[in-house]
């Protein structure tokens, strides 16, 4: 676990602090996240996600839950524990190739890329993005959602392995 904290501590801290913005709460949440990583590490599959992607998914979910808890909104479900399913030895992830991901992100329209940077990299809330860009709040929400779906479609076309382009049931 020490190696995991060394390798991914900065990533988790970055995800948490930009959303929580309260140092003490961020420290507690970081501990909760590493506890969940410890509990659910058996679920990690390097053929589906990169190790940093797996860690980021848990951190994002917990950070979003924290925000929703502040607003008294329902939270998302935790990842199920699969403790009887041993995790592989640490190996770099293969499922999501970083170059393909950058390629897909660079193919997005300029405005979507700017919104992604503000949301994912800088951790601005939708209201803060609206204020910073002058876009109506509803447009920020819609464009971010559609941007994510567009990125999924682009990656699907680039042949990434995630089940990225599901369709409606027949």
């Amino acid at each position, binding site marked *: 676990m020490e190696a995991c904290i060394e390798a991914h501590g900065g*990533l988790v801290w970055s995800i948490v602090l930009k959303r929580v913005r309260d140092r003490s709460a961020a420290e507690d949440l970081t501990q909760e996240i590493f506890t969940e990583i410890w509990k659910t590490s058996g679920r990690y599959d390097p053929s589906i996600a990169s190790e940093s992607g797996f860690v980021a998914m848990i951190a994002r979910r917990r950070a979003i839950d924290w925000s929703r808890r502040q607003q008294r909104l329902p939270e998302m479900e935790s990842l199920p524990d699969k403790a009887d399913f041993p995790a592989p030895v640490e190996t770099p992830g293969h499922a999501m190739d970083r170059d393909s991901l950058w390629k897909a992100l660079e193919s997005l329209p300029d405005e979507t890329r700017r919104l992604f940077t503000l949301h994912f990299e800088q951790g601005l809330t939708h209201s803060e993005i609206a204020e910073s860009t002058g876009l109506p709040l509803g447009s920020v929400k819609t464009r971010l959602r559609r941007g994510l779906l567009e990125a999924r479609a682009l990656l699907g076309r680039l042949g990434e392995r995630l089940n990225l382009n599901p369709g409606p049931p027949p």
Partner: protein
Amino acid sequence: MNVEDRWTRFEELDAGRVLGDLDAAELAEWQELSRDFGSDDALDQLAAEVEAVMILEKPLVLPPAVAARLKREFAPTPSSKSTGKIVIGPWLGWAVAACLLGLLVVSRLNFSQTPTAEQRRSLLVEKSADSRRLPFAPASDSYAAAQGEVVWSDSRQEGYMTLSNIPANDPARRQYQLWIVDPSRDEIPVDGGVFDIPAGSGPVVIPIQAKLAVKNPAAFVITLEQPGGVVKSKQEVVVALAKS
């Protein structure tokens, strides 16, 4: 709305769920649509990969004091020092047990094997001074044979149910759901997670997944609900109850 329109709406709401921007009405709409279309982690994974790849260009550094605290938290329990001459014979069994325990600790550190729910439950009982144990009692004639207990720690916000003689469910039709009654925080019970009882199993240990912080639980209630659980239970089928 036809199927294509419903699917388009579901995708948009699913993206909103992943981005954490659904309001209560949209969440209810997503839950209804997800019953038809299902839900998986693929979009969560994509958002996480995007965020990771962007952050890792210039990540913050985990403050050393926080890193040290985390490492202490996950460090193995220090073994006791040898103080005298060891007589091998009578202690051989204990030595083997200690080695096995050591292997368990090392495997945790290697991030290569996680303990089972039963092991984590035992650790909680042993290590958490405030853990409390409450027996489950059947709550209706249909579940008269239901037995078990709940272990819960307020400080760790962690708990487990050990259940037996509860009929197996078909997850496609109904699922069990735990509710935690905590009058000190709210009159509405906290969702403790959805779970299944597999066919033909003996006692099972189920981790509690409290969706909100629980301060002082007065009761734990198991109900039978639709697949995926519900936001608020009508308590039409109450299976078992554990009261403090």
